[in-house]
Each structure stands twice: as structure tokens, then as C-alpha cells.
């Protein structure tokens, strides 16, 4: 019985890879420049930050929740980290003219710790007050965005090269940011399939009551979900500041949560909870990346790009609902 399910799931998950391959083939025919290593590197670099966010929000969706705060967490973490990494001679330096920047590893640690604290807070609110995660994280979104704007009213730029290495450096021919993205993919895949935590979240998302009866500490696991989600967002924020060499508290990370949720959804993460595969989410990220990149290369009008994106997201969810209905 269990095996039959897996087989079906495997096939339907693969169908989305089919869609991706079709898109790539079509685009390569239309614009041969699309399928060059140079452009693929561009595509991956551009999608890495949102991709890491998507891996994080996947957990929240799997637990039958959602996290709307991640875009603002990106802004808050990136602006704080950027201020710590600002070179001494930067004009209007946030932490005082002539101050010394912290070493890159210290900044990254602080950024990740910020993610942990935000995640603990939101997770505790979701787990113990039982208010809908939509509302709890919406509050988090507003607060984090406001805090980042209070922290600095202007873009923070002129960052040290050691901090920027993680966002724009290269190891051999491969950008570091893409390597980090792939590592995050591996970590998430491992956590989801090989650890008790991953299995617990599947169980909680599938049926919270049953999970509780089975002896799973639902609250603790939910908190960990939001901690992990916020940590992913924090890593995204650090990388975004490094890649662009700047952080603007009012525009950075704006609507990233929606792109991340879209990628996770297109990748087959079910909003009814309990169903997802990391490889599917990876495929979702790549599909959205191909749309973003490909439509620019095809000289498609910007509004049209969003129309295409909207259609694909809605179609993916319709497909997903039907698939799950058939299984039930």
C-alpha cells in the first residue's frame, strides 16, 4: 500500500521536472544564448537567495502553516549585517564614521543568531497561542520591516570584501552563493528524509492530533520549524547584502516571501500540509528562475512576465489539489 503511494508520488513529482525540461528546450531553441554556462550561472546566482528562502518556507507549509515574515527578515538581517560590514571610510556610516567593520564570520554568526531569535519568537507564538501562522507571521513581517527601516533610513553600502565573498566570490568557476544554495538543498533534503525531526513535521502537517497521540511534541517541533525558516531567511539576507554590496531597508526582500512560497508551491508542497519533496521545491525554484531569466532574454514585457508567473502558480496548485484529491 505504502509503496503504491510512493510510486504515484514519484511519477507526479517527476512530471514537474518534465515541465522544466520542456521550458528549457523551448527557450534554448528560441534564444540559443539561454543554454550557455554563462547564462545558467546567472540564473542560479539570481535565484539562490529566493531558493534558500523557499527551502525554509517549505517546512512551514509542510507543517500546515506559512511564514510571511521571511522577506522582512531578509531586510532586517541584511541591513544589520551590512552596517557591521561597512568599511571605515563609507559616507554616512551607520555605526559611526571611521569605525572598524567586524570580521565576516562574526557578522554571519550575528545574522544567523538574529534569525534564531526571530524564529523562536514567531514559533512560540504560533505553537502556544494557536493563532493562525498567517497572522502571527504577518505581524512578524510588519515588525521586522519597520525595525529595519528604523535601524537605517538609507541604503547601507561599501561593504568589506571579506563579507562580500559569500555573496559574490567564486570557488573555481562556481559562485560561492550557488555552492551555499546547493549545500542548503542537501541539508534540507537530509533533515527532511533522514531525521526524526523531518518525519515529525510530516506527521504534524498530515494530522496534528494523530501526531500528538503518537507522542510527538508538537509545540517544540513547530517552534523548530519557524526557527529553521527564519535562519534560512537570515542566510538569504546575508547573501543578498554580500551579492549586491548594499542593503536598502525599504526595498530589500520586498515580496520575497511570495516568490519563495510560489517556488515551494509549484514544487508540489501541499498547502493542506504533510506533503512535500525537496527535489520538487528545487524544481519549483528552477522553473521560476527560468521564467524570470528566459522572459528577459525573450524581450517579453515586464507585466507579461508576472502574468505568466501568476498562471503557472495557480495552475500548479490546481494540479496539486487534484492530485491529492485522487489519492485520498
Amino acid at each position, binding site marked *: 500500500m505504502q509503496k503504491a503511494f510512493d510510486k504515484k508520488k514519484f511519477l507526479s513529482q517527476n512530471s514537474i521536472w518534465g515541465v522544466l525540461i520542456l521550458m528549457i528546450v523551448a527557450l534554448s531553441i528560441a*534564444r540559443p*544564448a*539561454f543554454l*550557455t554556462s*554563462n*547564462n545558467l550561472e*546567472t*540564473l542560479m*546566482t*539570481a535565484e539562490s537567495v529566493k531558493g534558500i528562502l523557499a527551502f525554509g518556507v517549505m517546512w512551514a507549509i509542510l507543517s500546515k502553516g506559512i511564514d510571511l515574515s521571511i522577506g522582512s527578515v531578509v531586510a532586517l538581517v541584511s541591513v544589520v549585517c551590512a552596517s557591521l560590514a561597512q568599511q571605515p571610510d563609507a*559616507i*554616512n556610516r551607520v555605526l559611526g564614521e571611521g569605525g572598524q567593520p567586524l570580521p565576516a564570520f562574526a557578522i554571519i554568526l550575528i545574522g544567523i543568531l538574529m534569525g534564531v*531569535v*526571530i524564529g*523562536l*519568537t514567531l514559533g*512560540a*507564538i504560533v*505553537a*502556544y497561542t494557536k493563532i493562525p501562522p498567517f497572522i502571527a507571521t504577518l505581524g512578524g513581517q510588519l*515588525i521586522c520591516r519597520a*525595525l529595519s*527601516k*528604523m*535601524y*537605517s*533610513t*538609507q*541604503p547601507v*553600502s*561599501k561593504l568589506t570584501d571579506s563579507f562580500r565573498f559569500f555573496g*559574490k566570490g567564486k570557488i573555481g568557476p562556481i559562485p560561492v552563493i550557488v555552492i551555499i544554495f546547493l549545500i542548503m538543498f542537501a541539508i534540507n533534503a537530509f533533515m527532511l528524509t533522514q531525521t526524526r525531526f523531518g518525519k515529525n513535521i510530516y506527521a504534524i502537517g498530515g494530522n496534528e492530533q494523530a501526531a500528538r497521540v503518537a507522542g510527538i*511534541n508538537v*509545540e*517544540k517541533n513547530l*517552534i523548530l520549524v519557524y526557527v529553521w525558516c527564519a535562519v534560512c531567511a537570515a542566510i538569504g539576507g546575508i547573501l*543578498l547584502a554580500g*551579492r*549586491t*554590496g*548594499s542593503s*536598502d531597508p*525599504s*526595498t*530589500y526582500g*520586498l515580496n520575497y516571501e511570495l516568490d519563495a512560497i510560489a517556488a515551494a508551491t509549484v514544487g508540489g508542497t501541499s498547502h493542506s500540509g504533510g506533503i512535500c519533496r525537496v527535489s520538487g521545491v528545487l524544481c519549483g525554484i528552477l522553473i521560476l528562475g527560468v521564467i*524570470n*531569466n528566459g522572459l*528577459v*532574454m525573450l*524581450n*517579453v*514585457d*515586464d*507585466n507579461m512576465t508576472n502574468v505568466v508567473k501568476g498562471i503557472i502558480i495557480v495552475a500548479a496548485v490546481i494540479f496539486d489539489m487534484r492530485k491529492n484529491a485522487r489519492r485520498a
Partner: protein
Amino acid sequence: MKMKRMKKLAAAMLAGVMLCGSLVGCGGGSQSASDSGASADSGAAASTGDQAQITLIMALRDEWLSELEKAAQKAAGDIGGINLTTQDANNDVSKQLQYIETARNSGAQAIIVNMVDPSTAAQCVEAAGDIPVVFVNRYPTDDSVLNEKAVYVGSDEMTSGAFQAEWLANWCKEQGKTEVKYVMLNGTLGQTSTTNRTKSFEEGMKAAGINAIQAAEALACDFDRAKAMDKFTPLIGSTEFDVVVSNNDAMALGVVEALQSKGVDPTSLPILGIDASKDGRAAIKEGTLAMSVFQDPAGQGRGALYAAANLANGEDIAKDSGFEKDETGNILWVPFEPVTKDNVAEYDNR
């Protein structure tokens, strides 16, 4: 038992975070308080009893508009006898109208409005009732609402792109080109500033007799550096272009980053911005941006405050402001200024 401990832990965490939040909040707050504190003090010293109430309603607080707000606060202190309140409508039209009504009801003598949506000018005037309104920065879509009690202070967006076109036309002549391929980076589609900056550039090129061709479909990047970087990178190496024209500096700098990440020297082609922001000016000095157009936030903030104070006192709007009225008498133009390597140093302390 375990559950209880978890709860306690969670509560402690929550308290900790709230504390952090309030500390961060205080940090930011005290900074801006020290900026505006001086102005409030001198205002109080000038006249403690009978202060003119002026309300400034911001569309939102980005880097540029925050500078405008600060300049207005500073001008309020310079004039003296003015109690200036500022509010942030957070890009929400209905909230803005509500703030206008609240200001009217609480006895404001003049209201400065930085409109969220320039097509709502008539509603803003209506909400203000008998109170004079000063529109700042964003020009009303329908300027028939402007009269002696509803004035505009700001820059003419239709000249910003024209400065870019003028610079580019000169560059083309120096290079002996009659044709130029450009990539346009738009701000937020549908916003007046985006439309007018792009349109005035295109018209300027046409007027200069240069055949300007779009090398690729214009990219809408919401005035955001990261987005410009993401959308521009695919064009590098796949599309031929001579210049990049951007609606603001942040996006132009995104293009610079994108070129550098692909190993292309950004000084090898002209990249044109608007704003002459701090980062933009630094890039002009380095030569990575060819030029920018300075829109004067401090001038607009100061001009708006003077106009509002003058209206509240029944005086001529241009009095002491340092700017000139146009022929209708209802507009104070704060001019745009082209910024290149030659004059960029002048803007560092503006």
C-alpha cells in the same frame, strides 16, 4: 512538566525579543530625535504660546523622502514658531486621506502632502476643507486643482530624463554616432515618476536628432538595486547595447554590480542614473556611473515648509523660500541639476 518549562522558555524568549526590539527602536528613534530635536527647541524658544500648526504627511519614508522630511523639520526650526507634525501614510491612499482629515480636525493651519497617488489630488484638497494644502514632490495628475490655497512645491519630472538625454546626445556627438542602442531600467510601472523620467528621456533623444533604439524590452525593477541586478544580468553577453539608462541611481548601481560580476568593466560604457544619491555620487567619482540628475530633497522639503508657513500666515508662498514661483503663482519649481564627474564634489554637502 516539560510543557510548562517550554512555555516558560518561550515567554522568556518573547520578553527578550521585545526588549531587543524596543532597544533597536530607541536607537533609531534617538538618532532622528537628535536631528529634529534642535529644530523643535528653537521653535519653542521663538514663541511658546501661539505656534502655527503644520502637518506633513509623507507617502512613505525611503532614503530620499526621509531627507525631504528632515529638511522640512530643520526649516521649521529656522523659521521658528512652528509646530510641525509628520505622519507616514505607508503608501496607502485611504490612510493618507484619513490623516489629512485628522489634521484638519485637530486645527492644523496648513497641510503638506506628499501624495501616495498623484491622481488623488482633488480628494486631498477636499479632505483638507478650508485648510491650505501644499503638495510636495509628486505633481498632481490633474493640475487644475492647484490654486492659491492648493499649491505645489517640487521638481518637474519631465526635465529629469531630458538631462539624461542631453548628456547622452553630447556623448553620441563626441563619438560621432547618430544611432545609439540603450537598455532602459524603469522604476515601478504605473508611477508618474517612472513614466515621466522614461518619456522625457525618449523625447529628449528625439529632439536631439539621435536615433535611440531599445536594445531590449525595458526592465521594470521597482527602483531596487537587487532586482535590477537580477534582471539585467541575463542581457550581458546575449544582447548588444551601448548605454544603460536608469530611472534612479540604485538600479544603475545594480547594473554596475551585474557587469562587475560578469567581468565587464562598468566604466567601458556610460550608465546614467537619477537622484545623485550618496552611493550614486561615489560611483560618479569612481567613473562607474557616467552621470546622474540631482533632485534636491532638502530644497523640496524646505520649500514646502516655507510655502506652508507662508500660506498659514497669509503671505506670498515664495517669501524667503529661495525659489521662484511659476507664471500661475501656484507652483514653486525646485530645479533638477545634472551631475557629472566635473561637479559631483559640489553635492557632497547639499
